[in-house]
C-alpha cells in the first residue's frame, strides 16, 4: 500500500525540497498489534499487518468502523504503544514505545487538566521547554485566539462545554508546533458549523507550518474535505482496504464540498465502508 509516497510527491515537492528530505516522514512496515488476554478477556487482534508511508507535510485521514483499531494505530505511531510485530519510523529513526520529540497528539477522550485554567493548560507544554515568558504568552494567546477560547483563558475546564474542552486539548498540542500532528476524532464534540470552520483553520495551520497530519475521523465528509489521502480501514483486525487520493489543491477550503468530485469521493468511501460497518456491528 505504498501509494502515498509516489502520488503526492509532486504536490509537496516544495517543502520536501526545502527540507531536503526524500524519505517518508512516517514509515510503518508490517505493523500488527495484539492485546494479550487478561483475566477472563480473550486476546484481541486489533491491527492486522499494516504498511503506511506519510510524506513530509502530507495530510492523511483515517476512517473505519468503530473498534477497528484506529486509536491503536495512532498510539503506535505516537510511540505510546509498541507494535506486536513490525517497525515504525519517524524522521528516519525507529520509535520504540517512547514518544519522540516533535510529535503532538490530540486524544479521542477529553484530556484537559481540570486543576489548571485554560491558559495554563495550553501553556503546560511550553513551560517544560526553555522559552522566555513573553514569547510563551504570545504563543499561548495566539493559539487561544485561533481556537476561539480567548474569553475563557482564566476559566477552568469544569466551566466549559465538552466541545470547548476538546478545543483546549487541540490548542495545548498545536501551541508546541509539532512536526507530526496526530488527531483522534478531534472535532467529535463540536457542532457541524464549528467543525467546518475548525477544519478550515486546521488546513491553514497545516499549510503554514508544513507539519504532517494524521487524523482519525468518523465523518466521511471531514475526511474527504481535509485530507490528501484517506485510508479506509476494514473491520477488526483493522487493515487498509484502500487508500483514496483526493487530489485537492494544497490551498483548499471547506468550499470544495460543493464540487462534484467531493460527492463521488464520499460515495466511494461509503461503498467501501458499508459492508465493513455491518460486520463491525454484528461482531458486538
Amino acid at each position, binding site marked *: 500500500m505504498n501509494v502515498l509516497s509516489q502520488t503526492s510527491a509532486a504536490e509537496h515537492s516544495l517543502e520536501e525540497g526545502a527540507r531536503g528530505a526524500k524519505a517518508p516522514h512516517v514509515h510503518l512496515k508490517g505493523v500488527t498489534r495484539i492485546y494479550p488476554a487478561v483475566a477472563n478477556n480473550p486476546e484481541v487482534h486489533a491491527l492486522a499487518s499494516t504498511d503506511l508511508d506519510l510524506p513530509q507535510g502530507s495530510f492523511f485521514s483515517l476512517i473505519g468502523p468503530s473498534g477497528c483499531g484506529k486509536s491503536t494505530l495512532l*498510539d503506535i505511531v*505516537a510511540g*505510546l504503544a509498541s507494535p506486536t510485530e513490525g517497525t515504525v519510523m519517524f524522521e528516519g529513526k525507529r520509535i520504540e514505545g517512547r*514518544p519522540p*520529540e516533535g*510529535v*503532538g*497528539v490530540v*486524544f*479521542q*477522550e*477529553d*484530556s*484537559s*487538566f*481540570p*486543576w489548571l485554567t485554560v491558559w495554563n493548560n495550553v501553556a*503546560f*507544554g511550553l513551560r*517544560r521547554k526553555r522559552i522566555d515568558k513573553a514569547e510563551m504568552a504570545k504563543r499561548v494567546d495566539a493559539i487561544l485566539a485561533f481556537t476561539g477560547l480567548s474569553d475563557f483563558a482564566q476559566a*477552568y*475546564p*469544569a466551566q*466549559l462545554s465538552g466541545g470547548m*474542552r476538546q478545543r483546549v486539548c487541540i490548542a495545548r498540542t498545536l501551541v508546541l508546533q509539532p512536526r507530526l500532528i496526530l488527531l483522534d476524532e478531534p472535532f467529535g464534540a463540536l457542532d457541524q458549523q464549528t467543525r467546518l470552520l475548525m477544519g478550515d483553520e486546521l488546513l491553514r495551520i497545516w499549510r503554514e507550518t508544513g507539519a504532517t497530519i494524521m487524523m482519525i475521523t468518523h465523518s466521511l465528509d471531514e475526511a474527504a474535505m481535509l485530507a490528501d489521502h484517506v485510508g479506509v480501514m476494514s473491520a477488526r483486525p483493522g487493515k487498509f482496504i484502500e487508500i483514496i487520493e483526493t487530489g485537492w489543491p494544497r490551498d483548499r477550503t471547506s468550499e470544495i464540498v460543493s464540487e462534484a468530485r467531493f460527492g463521488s469521493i464520499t460515495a466511494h468511501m461509503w461503498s467501501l465502508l458499508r459492508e465493513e460497518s455491518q460486520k463491525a456491528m454484528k461482531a458486538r
Partner: protein
Amino acid sequence: MSKAGWIRLVIVIAFFGALEIMCRIGWIDRLTMIPPTEMAEALWSMLLAGSITEDVLYSLRNTVAAVALSVLAGFVCGVIVHALPRLRRILDPLFASYYAVPVFVFYPLLVVIFGINATPLILIGAMFGIVAMLISTLTGLDRVPRVMFKSARMFQLDPLRSALLIKLPSAAPHLITGVKLAVVYSVIAVVAGEFILSSKGIGHRIAYAYNDFDSRTMYGLLLLLLTAVTVVTMSLHMWEHRLHSRWAKQ
C-alpha cells in the same frame, strides 16, 4: 447552608442539649460527666490561664509531624506500588489486613528504642496514618483516566515530574480522603501514646486528670480535641467535594 446541613446542626445541638439536661437533673452524676456548658467554660478558663498551652502545642506539633510523614510517605509508596503491578498483587492483601493488626503494641517498643520523647509518638502516629494514605493513593490513581497518563508521556515528563505535575493533581480528590483518614488515625495514635507513656501532651494531661478525679480538666480537654478534629475533617471534607465536582468537569 443546605437543608441537610441544617438538619445535621439541629441533631448536634439536640444531642448536647439532652446531655446538658441529663447532667443538670442528676441522671448522670457529676463524677461521671459534667454538663457540656461546664466543659466549654472549663476549657475557656484553661485557655485563658495558659495552663494547657504547652501540652496543646506539644500534641499539635507531634500530630502535624505524624500526618505530614504519613501523607508524604504514603503518597510516595502509593505511586511506586501503582507503577509496579506485580509488587502490588503481592502487597494488596497485606494492605487490606493492616488495620486488623494491633499496630499500637509497637508503641512501648518504640519508647524503648527512642526513649520517652516526641519521636515514638510521631512514629506511631505515622504508622497509623501511612497505609490509609497509601490505599487512597492507589484508589485515586486507579480512577485517573488513562488518557491523563498518556498525556504525561507525550509531554516527555520524567517519572518525578509526571508524579508531581500529573499524577498528584489528577488523583487529588482521592488523596484528600487519604489525608482525612491520616489526620484521624494520627490523632488517635498520638493522643493514645501520650495517654499511656509520655511526660507531656493533651493525652498525658487527660490521663492525669482522670486519675485525679478532675472532671473539669479532663472534659475540657476532650471537648478541645473533639472540636479540633471535627473542624479539620469537615474542612477537608468540603474541599474534597469541591475538587470532586471540578475534576468530574460538571
